[in-house]
């Protein structure tokens, strides 16, 4: 049945909901976007839902085990009453804010009192920091005296406005990096958490920022390959996902079925899915070609679910290229979804037989983490942080070409036992290394180490065994 003709879908905003429907965000009467093949999308994808309250630590016990929660409490014991300040440049939007929204209440629940402050600045400041961001990723840029002055002036304004009497001050990304000049007045430990790839920075911008970074007690990067040589200790904190978020929590199968029905996805046949923005670096056109090569041998549908086309001219162009590549194939389902459709993305991932992330360039690749967490056999490009997550043939498969991707789709669809095995191992990999609770543990370990608790020495021939 076409979803617009389905009264169950149109009545989702009504008070009386079935248990399944109550998981679906409420509606506002706005026009539905148009499906590339002429099928209107359900109206609920057009309205951002109210975010649910953050979960408590004990809510994670069913996922990671009670003993892991106890480990967090043990780690936090010596830090109880200490104060932590997190500083970044935005309260909403983006991965850093999303992560802090979860991390701050979790640390506070462990009685490591954590406050999150956001720096302020004019448009000129954020234009400069945006340019710095791009330049640190290697984009061409001319660093002017004026840009440096603007950066320093707003950092100084924020330094005067904010208090730094905490035990740990964590500065996220380059925008507030010059706040380190406040450390002369206090005994706090200062940590720079860099979320961006510094492997190939613009030399002038890096030389400008470097003297500030070197004054921190430690730096944290998201991948070994993103780091720079610095005279301070550098730690590796992988990005992580929240297993209780809309995008990752367990879902009733009836809800998954409903979403598939709404989007015209046939669960009785294999489903190959890529979830990502319509961005050339995610190679959605390459995925269409890989699907077409694989389909000569195996029956399957392709779902390309993403966003970025509505508010980004380049995204719209890429979406058009994908539609052109797809042609009239009714088994290719292209969904341009807004960012608040976490539940729907979750359901599509859970319905999928295989998940693909054929990126040509990538940061860490959290969509891969999400796929692995759902136990899905995952095929991904061997770029950026993806090889940290996918150990080839053990927790997923890595590919380097359209042909390689096509072959792996065929192989996984025809070898379900192997697919199941790598899917299971992939989920365990995420559970061990890439969940929010592991991230909390890393922060507690770092606070303890910086507080003077010496790590246990590895015994060598010159040391006596402990």
């Amino acid at each position, binding site marked *: 049945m076409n979803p617009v003709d389905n009264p169950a879908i149109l009545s989702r905003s009504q008070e009386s909901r079935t248990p399944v429907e109550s998981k679906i965000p409420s509606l506002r009467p706005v026009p539905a976007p148009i499906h590339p093949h002429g099928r209107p999308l359900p109206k609920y994808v057009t309205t951002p839902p109210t975010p649910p309250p953050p979960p408590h630590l004990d809510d994670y016990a069913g996922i990671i085990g009670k003993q892991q929660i*106890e*480990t967090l409490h043990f780690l936090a014991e010596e830090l109880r009453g200490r104060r932590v300040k997190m500083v970044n440049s935005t309260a909403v939007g983006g991965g850093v804010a999303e992560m802090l929204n979860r991390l701050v209440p979790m640390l506070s629940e462990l009685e490591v009192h954590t406050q999150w402050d956001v720096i302020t600045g004019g448009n000129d400041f954020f234009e400069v920091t945006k340019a710095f961001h791009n330049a640190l990723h290697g984009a061409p840029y001319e660093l002017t005296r004026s840009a440096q002055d603007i950066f320093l002036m707003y950092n100084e304004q924020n330094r005067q406005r904010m208090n730094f009497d905490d035990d740990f001050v964590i500065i996220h990304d380059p925008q507030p990096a010059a706040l380190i000049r406040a450390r002369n007045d206090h005994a706090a430990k200062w940590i720079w958490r860099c979320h961006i790839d510094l492997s190939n920075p613009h030399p002038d911008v890096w030389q400008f920022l470097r003297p500030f970074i070197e004054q921190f007690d430690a730096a944290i990067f998201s991948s070994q390959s993103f780091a720079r040589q610095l005279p301070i200790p550098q730690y590796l904190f992988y990005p992580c996902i929240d297993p209780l978020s809309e995008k990752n929590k367990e879902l009733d199968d009836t809800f998954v079925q409903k979403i598939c029905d709404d989007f015209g996805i046939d669960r009785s046949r294999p489903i190959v899915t890529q979830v990502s923005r319509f961005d050339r670096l995610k190679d959605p056109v390459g995925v269409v070609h890989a699907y077409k090569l694989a389909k000569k041998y195996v029956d399957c549908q392709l779902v390309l679910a993403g966003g970025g086309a509505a508010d980004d001219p380049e995204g719209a162009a890429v979406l058009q290229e994908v539609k052109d590549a797809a042609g009239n194939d009714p088994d290719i389902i292209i969904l341009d979804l807004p960012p608040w459709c976490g539940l729907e993305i979750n359901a599509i991932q859970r319905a999928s037989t295989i998940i693909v992330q054929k990126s040509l360039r990538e940061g860490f690749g959290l969509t891969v983490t999400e796929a692995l967490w759902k136990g899905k056999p995952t095929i991904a490009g061997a770029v950026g942080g993806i090889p940290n997550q996918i*150990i*080839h043939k053990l*927790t997923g498969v890595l590919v380097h070409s359209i042909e390689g991707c096509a072959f792996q789709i065929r192989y996984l669809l025809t070898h379900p036992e192997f697919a199941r095995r790598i899917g299971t191992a992939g989920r365990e*990999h995420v*559970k061990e290394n890439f969940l929010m609770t592991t991230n909390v543990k890393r922060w507690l370990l770092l606070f303890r*180490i910086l507080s003077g608790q010496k790590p*246990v020495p*590895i015994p060598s021939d010159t040391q006596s065994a402990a």
Partner: protein
Amino acid sequence: MNAPNTARKLIKPFYFNTSEHLLRIGRERACTLNELLHALQVCPEDSIFQHTYSTLQEHHFIRQGFSNDFAHWSLSSCHEPILAEQLASVDVREYTSISGLRQHMIELVRDFLAAHPRSADRSATEPFYFCAADLVVLPTPFVTNNIESFLEGLRKVTLHSIHHHFIEARLRLRLMTNDFSEWLKEEAGLEQTAAAIDRIDIYTNTMEGVRRQIARIVEQSLN
């Protein structure tokens, strides 16, 4: 199998601890096998520990095909299956010090490059970034002074605790054994049980599988 009086109170309690590792990014980096050989010689011991011992904890859920990071990189980025197999065959439990383990790794790479000189400077598809582990040892609520409660603790502690007592212990004890076997032998008089636990193969088991095998062996000692 030996059958002790398990009801008797054992003299010295067993404290289940756990160790948590924080990954530090090291200075060394290798883009070729020659560079790997050099880095193996100069990197700090906690880097060798990270890429052999700690990596087993991070990948405890893999039953086969993952031994240490050097072997994995030799295969996945250098495409050298012979060296990868040789490095993968190194069992960390045959060493009671990091220096002995390091020396063996160096010899394997050096011998391989002597036999395959053209492989020495071929670029890897991805660099090997040396990291290091900072360890923090923590207590758990489980303390035991008899076999029944030992089994209970064994079943309830985290897999990090099993790794701490069963694998990392050799570096602390400087003996070719582990904390569980040592306690069962010295305090409970279960010599054969201790020896059977020592023979568990960690490279063909997940850490959960290792836990189950230890429990099964200890249960058999009660019969």
